[in-house]
């Protein structure tokens, strides 16, 4: 029962004014720019490809259903295989992103956070003191 620090500041996101100079320095640093680039390099193409892959599936189902009827093995047709492949690719992209984020995003983010957080805590202590 942690009644020690009930958080009494108003619950609005914009309540604390952090040290903007420190943040801007980070934003312009090569390390942060590299993190941002690596994040977008994965996230944007992966989202686009998944959406395109899904759109191709839906369009084929609607406008070329005979393609889906192509037999693959016995009663399994191409539509069934493609549908299950949608599930499989969703799982694959998920695990690929987890691997990528663990390897290429989290360490850089943690490093920047570890350096920046003491600076911000010092500067914003007045407005933002209740944070544990």
């Amino acid at each position: 029962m942690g009644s020690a620090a009930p958080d009494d500041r108003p619950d609005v996101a914009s309540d604390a004014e952090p040290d903007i100079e420190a943040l801007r320095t980070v934003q312009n640093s090569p390390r942060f720019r590299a993190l941002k680039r690596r994040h977008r390099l994965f996230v944007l193409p992966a989202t686009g490809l998944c959406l395109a892959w899904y759109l191709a599936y839906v369009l084929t189902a609607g406008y070329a259903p005979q393609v889906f009827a192509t037999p693959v093995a016995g009663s399994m047709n191409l539509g069934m295989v493609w549908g299950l492949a949608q599930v499989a690719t969703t799982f694959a992209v998920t695990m690929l992103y987890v691997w990528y984020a663990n390897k290429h995003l989290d360490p850089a983010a943690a490093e920047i956070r570890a350096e920046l957080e003491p600076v911000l805590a010092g500067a914003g202590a007045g407005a933002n003191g209740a944070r544990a």
Partner: protein
Amino acid sequence: MSAAILVQASTASTSPGDPILNIAIFGAFVAVTMVIVFRASRNNKTASDYYAAGRSFTGGQNGSAIAGDYLSAASFLGIVGAIAINGYDGFLYSIGFLVAWVVALLVVAELLRNTGKFTMGDVLAFRLRQRPVRIAAAISTLVVSFFYLLAQMAGAGGLVSLLLGIDERIGQSVVIAVVGALMILYVLVGGMKGTTWVQIIKAVLLIAGAGVMTVWVLAINGFSFPALLDAAVATTGNPAILEPGLQYGLSDVTRLDFLSLGLALVLGTAALPHVLMRFYTVPTAKEARKSVVWAIWLIGIFYVFTLVLGYGAAALIGPEAIAAAPGGANSAAPLLAFELGGPVLLGIISAVAFATILAVVAGLTITAAASFSHDVYASVIKKGKASPQQEVKVARITVVVIGLVAIVGGIGANGQNVAFLVALAFAVAASANLPTIVYSLFWKGFTTRGALWSMYGGLTTAIVLIALSPVVSGGERSMIPGADFAIFPLSNPGIVSIPLAFLLGWLGSVLERRRESSDKQTEMEVRSLTGVGAEKATAH
């Protein structure tokens, strides 16, 4: 969609199982969850506890809760029934619900967890002008939650006749009121913590129940999926159930309609306010990522189960028998449970279906209440000067009001064709919320005017197009059967409203002279990617 499919066949007579047993098993679920909710609520002290469960859930727990929040009765009864009767098209429908989570995982979950606090409005208004954007975010949240909630509550009425054998309108209304009252109690007492536990327990029961039935169906067919398909074709005498087209492939309009629906599903999921709010219940962005990974696995496996169960129902019971049963397509899963495990398995599956509605409406209600209290009351009316105690009090009052509205609305909509409401909720979320979320996170030049144009434009377009579509007038199954003002041919507005909302967001931003604070942009960008200054878990 659940609701409507359910309601469609409310001419029902009797349940195939034992209604007393069904009620007893559901009663046990309510009793167990109530104890857990009361225990969990003892630690509810701050606003963060009430809205975000103290940000203390693990990724695995939250992922299960997301699955519990997302897999509505429609996913289970509706999709199994759709596959049993229409074959492949039901499966096609379920794929969109799963692929959508890629957007949530890659684009939304972590960045949102890092920048926001309790609601979607926190993120949308982060670097824009607070008052107008928060009001727009709250309106959109309330509209989406209301549509979704109404569909679930009306669906409860249809379930009652199917599972409890109650056919009179008055009896169904009583059950809807009981479901609503239970939901109010859970959310009032348990807050986000209680709601989350209800969702976790329900997800485990639902997925385990579907899993047992899936293994059972496969065992009957020698653990061969092709053998199951052969059996389904043999029973139905219709090889077309293995191909698309039975439900959606009738004409150019229905094809375009499905494309529109597919777009709304795949882009709307990551912008549903009750899904977004779940990302705040974990301590870090990394746990938010783990939550979505868990959710994707659970939801994906579940939809594969529904594929087996759908064809299993087609093989073992047959589409004619299902369509003729009380509840129509929705009776496929319950009838299959009865066929496999008799009244006991049917009782369990029925209880799970009710638990499903309960968990989903609880999640919607706390989201809507948090948005009203946090975005409208605390941020706009009190201009950020409300204490957390006042804010939580307003949230609790809102929960009761929303619960009562949901009960009255659910009773009123019982028997109406409200299937389009869930699809509309996805379309509104994809149109009103997603463009603003994406632009805020990824485009420096986005402005308040862009956000307002996009949100109000997307919201209004989606609703007006639905009002002018065949679901409201001009068709045999329209809401207003006599009238015909359906000048928009599609029953899902997504294909028009989503691109339009993206366009309006861009246009509004480039036309606005006034620039947004670059300080806030800096803060948001650094914070979203590194987690610096993100909300911390409360220590208990």
